[in-house]
């Protein structure tokens, strides 16, 4: 019946007399599905913003992250996320993210796109050359075995395992100017 599409008719005829349930459902709302419905899997994660360490559930469908929500299991956060944590989906899948390596040559006025392997090779060459050119065995007669020609800043947003490899490689290279936000 065409008339039954009218919410008021359904409200008067049906059991939902207060109009807060079935009576007011539209075809549109009836076909709504939760964003996380149909997710292939839920992956346990941790919010990447501040150091409270709220739990996150990451919902994946067709190898794409489709939603990130607070993890109710976490004794830290009990399912809550702040505005930043709630924006994690935009952080991880938003249009502002870059997926290409960019290169700016000396005195150039713009970027050019570079392939990843070439760029990695260029960085390795520059590290080796700068290290060699600025190497010091001694300073004021004391052994230092290092280069002051290379520095690094960053780590507080990264994983422990990443910081570990950074410190290990830099130290083996003799790079001592290794720093992160903890100094700042």
């Amino acid at each position: 019946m065409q008339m039954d599409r009218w919410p008021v008719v359904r409200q008067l005829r049906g059991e939902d007399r207060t109009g807060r349930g079935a009576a007011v459902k539209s075809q549109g709302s009836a076909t709504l599905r939760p964003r996380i419905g149909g997710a292939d899997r839920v992956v346990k994660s941790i919010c990447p913003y501040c150091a409270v360490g709220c739990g996150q559930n990451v919902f994946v469908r067709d190898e794409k992250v489709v939603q990130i929500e607070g993890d109710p299991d976490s004794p830290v956060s009990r399912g809550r996320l702040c505005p930043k944590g709630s924006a994690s989906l935009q952080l991880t899948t938003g249009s502002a993210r870059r997926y290409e390596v960019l290169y700016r040559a000396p005195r150039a006025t713009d970027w050019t796109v570079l392939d990843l392997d070439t760029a990695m090779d260029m960085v390795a060459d520059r590290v080796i050359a700068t290290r060699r050119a600025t190497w010091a065995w001694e300073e004021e007669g004391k052994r230092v075995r290092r280069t002051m020609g290379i520095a690094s800043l960053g780590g507080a947003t990264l994983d422990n395992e990443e910081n570990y490899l950074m410190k290990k490689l830099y130290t083996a290279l003799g790079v001592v100017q290794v720093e992160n936000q903890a100094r700042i």
Partner: protein
Amino acid sequence: MAECHPVGFQWVMEAKARGATVIHVDPRFTRTSALADLHVPLRAGTDIAFLGGIVNYVLEHERYFREYVVAYTNGPTIIKEDYRDTEDLDGLFSGFDPDERTYDFHSWEYEGAELSPSAGERDEAYEDKVGGGPAGGGPAGDGPAGDGPGGGGPAGGGPGEGDVGVPVDRSRRVVESSRGQAHGSGGAAAAPNPERDETMEHPRCAFQILKRHFARYTPEMVEEVCGVPRELFVKVCETLAANSGRERTSAFCYAVGWTQHTVGVQYIRTAAILQLLLGNIGRPGGGILALRGHASIQGSTDIPTLFNLLPGYIPMPHAHMDEDLDSFVAGTATEKGYWGDMRSYMVSLLKAWWGPAATEESEYCFDYLPRLTGDHGTYQTVQAQLRGECKGYFLAGENPAVGSANGRMQRLGMAKLDWLVVRDFSLIESATWWKDGPEIETGELRTEEIDTEVLFFPAAAHTEKNGSFTNTQRMLQWHHAAIEPPGDARSELWFYYHLGRIIREKLAGSADEMDRPVLDLTWDYPTEGRIGEPTAEAVLAEINGWDGDGEPLGSYEQLNEDGSTACGCWIYCGVYAGGVNQAAQRRPGREQSWVASGWGWAWPANRRILYNRASADPEGKPWSERKALVWWDEASGVWTGHDTPDFAASKSPWHRPPRGARAAEALSGVDPFVMQDDGKAWLFAPAGLADGPLPAHYEPQDSPVANLLYGQQRNPVRRTVADRHNLYHPDPSAAGSSVFPYVLTTYRLTEHHTAGGMSRWQPYLAELQPEMFCEVSPELAAERGLEHLGWATIVTARNAIEARVLVTERVTPLRVQGRTIHQIGLPYHWGPNGYVRGDAANDLASLALDPNVHIQEAKAFTGDIRPGRRPRGPAKAELVEQYVRRAGVDLETGTGVLDGR
């Protein structure tokens, strides 16, 4: 806390609902203030005066927890006769060297006990212990050998301890490098057997010195210095004191509002002294809690991407004549406590890094470590860049063009580099300054003349990689990769692993000795997936460590000094116990006790509250049933409780170490502070600090008022940077000081993240906080003709920025020394890129550094504010120049040592 750690703040609100009183001390009124019982606005940069005032109140009114203080702190310990306090020297401590701008700490030491600091730069007394005479020697003096709980424990001199009387070379600068990470675990070292007076009546005991030192921090003084009315201040004191002791505990939460000062470390020290006096350390509901702003900033301090540390707070070695592993250990280890096992930690680390090459014959490749010769912190790096000495720079998830103090120096420094690698999600300001930075606009830099090569690498998100974050309570939590990173986006794990692999391939076959550490490095991690991602759990397994059979270790107590164990970070040992990733534990909180030990893994040994032996009395009984955490179970002869006891499991409260015991064995049953060389918490720091054994209030580098407490205006050993881009403001007594009359302070907002790299590119967050603004009071707006929602220009001797004006009573003018002090609040999230843009507040700040940790003073400085937008192009630099001229500022301004006298 409600602003910057909102989800953590839910627990404060839970406590409030159960009757807790919430006090918020902050120059501005925030979401935290709105929910607090008491909001106390104070002048930025005066927290030592404020906290010192509470210390004085607690001492004067005898509100301290006497049994706790006597048993667990160095309050009873006698200090050397030649110690002179700020009370004697009008704001200086004994040992000051005005030429070197350093202190010699030797007069601060315990009576009859030689010291070597162990927080941060722990070889402060290297010459005493190594260079000053042969290692070994007699005990440093016997303290009272108590025979019951509460007494001191006997301990003989151990190997490596130098004689007290050996003449030492004191010409070396005491301040060599960062002496302590404010959030680290570093204990400091004292000889294990100092003289104590358990009555705390001895005039030279730390407790009595403390009393005299803080006696001038009266409520009246607090009112005049901080601008906090004395009635309000006394209410804070009374509330805190009433809520501490046997039955109750109070906690302090802080963030960089306490650290970014030229006296930042001493801020935390003052809070530590207060919390120890009140018995609020090592107990549930107590503590001094650093609320850290990045997901794993704690982890990046524990496994440090920091110049002065190796993993687990092992100090990076300093350059000394003929230094070897033995002398390094002798110079940095403590006699007593867990730092006594320094050699085991160090050798195990070297084994993890250099594997088969690390043998006894090769001294475990100790010589492969580069050495420090001073401060090599990030603000030294920027100066080295400007001098052309530092030529290559990696940025990994950090945006110094916006986030570091004096952003202009950062950008000018990068313009001098040969090459710059930026790894981030989007094109942050630190990646694009060469084409659209503020200095391009003013004409100071021209794109076509900048030689720096820039390589931008897109970073993988947390959802695209496996790994662990260490949160602000030392808890490691594993996040699992949901998908592989798209395009050329890669994790840092991928980037650094493959960079190392390529470098090693290119150097293969090199016979150059400088390449040996690279070629001998253990660097054979398994990789997986389409992109060859290193297996993060394999790296975690190395961090955890293994024994000679390759079996994962379960505890740092298993580490050996003979090369039979490897461990990448000793304090994380146990995170992979049994070959199981403990950081990935996820037993739901509702299925556990309030301690929730089954979720994640907290270092060390999954302890959730550090030093929790102090939650029980000397006999091992909880101070009160309400506040029970761990206790001694006499029947079974072990420590037990809700949390993992932070104490040797079977060491009874009555245990007294035998003579000659060393390291952890030398700790008695009443030494809860197991990292300290005397097992006690330090009210008075006899070593380890660059700027004094006790906190003293000094005015910030840029301040509108004179120091009322002492003749000494500023921290005499603060680090200043003489550079034409880094001019300081005149002394308050100088004629030009009125040119910069207002106090500036920077802060964060809920909707943005630090320098904005993870929030200004997110549409939701950009919309929620769309524009840079400054907060001013209605009174200041009237004084300077500022209109709500209009524009203002804020000027310092470093730079000028513009911001929208928010006229609000959230900022309160304060009465200080008979005059009105206006404060201006500046969020620092914005820069020229992203969806929402604005000038960077950090461009206004100077490099004036804490002498212990070399952090910048960004939370209290001065400036001027005027209506209207800032000038464009070269006219901006001219405006700043006008101010500099009017104020009579030059390179010398504000750099005096004994200033204010």
